[in-house]
């Protein structure tokens, strides 16, 4: 595999749906290509940062907070 193929397969690789032979080729390329390794890491970081924006939007229900505080007092 070369860089264009590896970058094309990143989503399938992270989703764990890349077939074993392709996965092996994918990882072989990563072992010798710092640029694709950086691309994979920053692609994964991008998803992590997206999810972080979702987490910060979540409001914890007051009932749940009260239940947790009550449980800690027991």
């Amino acid at each position: 595999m070369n860089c264009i193929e590896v970058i094309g397969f990143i989503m399938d690789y992270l989703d764990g749906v890349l077939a074993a032979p392709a996965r092996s080729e994918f990882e072989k390329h990563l072992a010798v290509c710092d640029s694709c390794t950086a691309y994979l890491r920053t692609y994964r970081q991008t998803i992590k940062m997206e999810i972080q924006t979702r987490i910060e939007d979540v409001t914890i229900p007051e009932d749940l907070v009260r239940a947790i505080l009550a449980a800690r007092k027991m």
Partner: protein
Amino acid sequence: MKLRSRPKAEEESIDALLPTFIADGHQTRDTVDWSETADAALEREETAEAVRSKIDELPESYRTILVMHDLEEMSNADIAEALGISTNLVKVRLHRARQALRTLLEHQFGEPQ
């Protein structure tokens, strides 16, 4: 996460935000790993707002799929049905949307502050 409304515009191309390659299939320029810098920035309150702002910069047809999949946790099949497009097109647009967002975040976190 809420979808933010904004004025309808002509569909913009996302190509400028996708990686480019030379004839032998290698990347035109080396990618720099900015993931640790960005990870440290996650602790700052303004980072989430910066990421939301970058998501808002994506063309609507890509932004919609990215939000439905990554933030609303909808399956590719459900997104395809909701938008009346194929599951394969959902996958292609999701991957491109993430790549484009990666490039936008690289501008924010991958260059000297």
